[in-house]
């Protein structure tokens, strides 16, 4: 097995007196799509924030491409697609991608990513005027522009229409096939079932079950596995 691109070992974190991560342990390998599933508030986005160095865990070990999260060696080699905005409201997509590309030594050409993701028709529209789905595509392009070795995609297809969603799935698969370690959070079970090489099910800040999709769905659908092992917050 290749060395893990991301290692999360017994990570604990409390924020505002509330335990968010409670002994979280998982890993992500290069050339594979690793899905992190869990209900709202399970700690998925916080986990990504720990992995980018934005939040420092209280305890545990976390290494990103063999380095401390947020260190220069790690930060230059990861890509992040945030769940929410992540861009200046007045910036245009082509301008944002050119700027992000300028931070890297060997980036993708912004125009190639614009073509690949179909951003062209709205490349000169200020970010605040884009639809949620269009913003998602720009954020995805921003995550890939530096040619990362490890990419975090926080609910990458939320708000996308089925055509764009399928195209994005194909792009994510191609990323992994090209050797990138992809860490994906999603609420869409079909997305996880289609894309993931390994699924980690997170609830209340810890992994409750994990395995390949085939292993997890031997006796039930992935959604049933999800419902069985995680606590609902609704109602």
């Amino acid at each position, binding site marked *: 097995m290749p060395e893990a691109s991301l290692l999360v070992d017994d990570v604990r974190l409390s924020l505002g007196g509330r335990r968010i991560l409670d002994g979280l342990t998982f890993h992500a390998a290069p050339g594979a799509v690793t899905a992190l599933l869990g209900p709202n508030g399970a700690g998925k986005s916080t986990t990504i*924030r720990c992995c*980018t*160095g*934005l939040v420092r865990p209280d305890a545990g070990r976390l290494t990103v491409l063999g380095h401390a999260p*947020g260190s*220069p060696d790690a*930060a*230059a*080699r*990861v*890509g*992040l697609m*945030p769940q*929410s*905005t*992540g*861009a*200046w*409201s*007045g*910036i245009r997509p082509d*301008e944002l991608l050119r*700027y*992000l590309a*300028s*931070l*890297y*030594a*060997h980036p*993708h050409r912004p125009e*190639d*990513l614009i073509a*690949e993701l179909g951003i062209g028709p709205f490349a000169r529209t200020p970010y605040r005027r884009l639809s949620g789905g269009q913003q998602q595509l720009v954020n995805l392009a*921003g995550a*890939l522009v*530096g*040619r*990362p*070795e490890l990419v*975090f995609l926080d609910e990458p297809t939320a708000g996308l229409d089925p055509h764009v969603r399928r195209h994005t799935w194909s*792009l994510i698969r*191609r*990323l992994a096939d*090209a*050797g*990138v370690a992809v860490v994906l959070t999603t609420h869409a079970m079909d997305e996880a079932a289609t894309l993931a090489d390994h699924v980690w099910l997170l609830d209340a800040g810890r992994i409750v079950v994990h395995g390949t999709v085939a292993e997890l769905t031997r006796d039930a659908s992935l959604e049933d596995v999800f419902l069985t092992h995680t606590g609902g917050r609704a109602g």
Partner: protein
Amino acid sequence: MSLDLSPRAAAAPRPARLLHHARVEVGLQLRNGEQLLLALVIPVGLLVAGLLWGRPLGVDPVAYPASILALAVWSTSFTSLAITTGFERRYGVLERLIATPLSRADLVIGKALATAAVAAGQVTLLAAVAAGLGWRPAPTASGTLVAVAAALLASGCFAALALALAGRLEATVTLGLVNLIYLAGAAGGGLVLPVAAYPEAARLPVSLLPTAALGESLRSWASGGVEPGALGVLGCWLVLALLVARKAFRWTA
């Protein structure tokens, strides 16, 4: 031909990162109507009105333009910076940029470069407008040195205060509060009006404000004087503001 997605990640050289970041920030500021109002429209309006019609009201034609230059440094280094940073936190821009080769220090330096560039542009334009309206300052070499040092210290101090507020408060609260502080500093903080124009009892407290220290320093420069005491006041405020900003700033909203 489909895109080659194989990894080839590496950071661009630091000077390039800083330059590109500063350039984006300057571009966004110059495109923002509210920022332009603060940076140019208000100072130019005050300058023209004061020089054309202020003489009967006691406006000093040599010191007044220097006060407006101080106002420009105040609006760019404090108000504009606080507003843009507050909304960057709200929109997750800072959180997004953390996961790039741009380090936290790069972000702060990039912001400083952008702020300095906008302030330099403002001061140049305002000085040109004032000169066109007949302003003839009479600075000495030592006065110029002290005034430049005061402007740099003040800019750093205002920026640190801006980051302390914007890095802690919600963006809309920051927006309202910094506009209020902008007006208070301009009108009552010794920035536009000389400290001597305040009531006797208020002069000492006002003179200890960083806004007054900058205003007095630039007015003194324009009139051929030197105001070295302002450097001490601004130095103390800068240290204090940096400590508060370091403690208060949060990268996410």
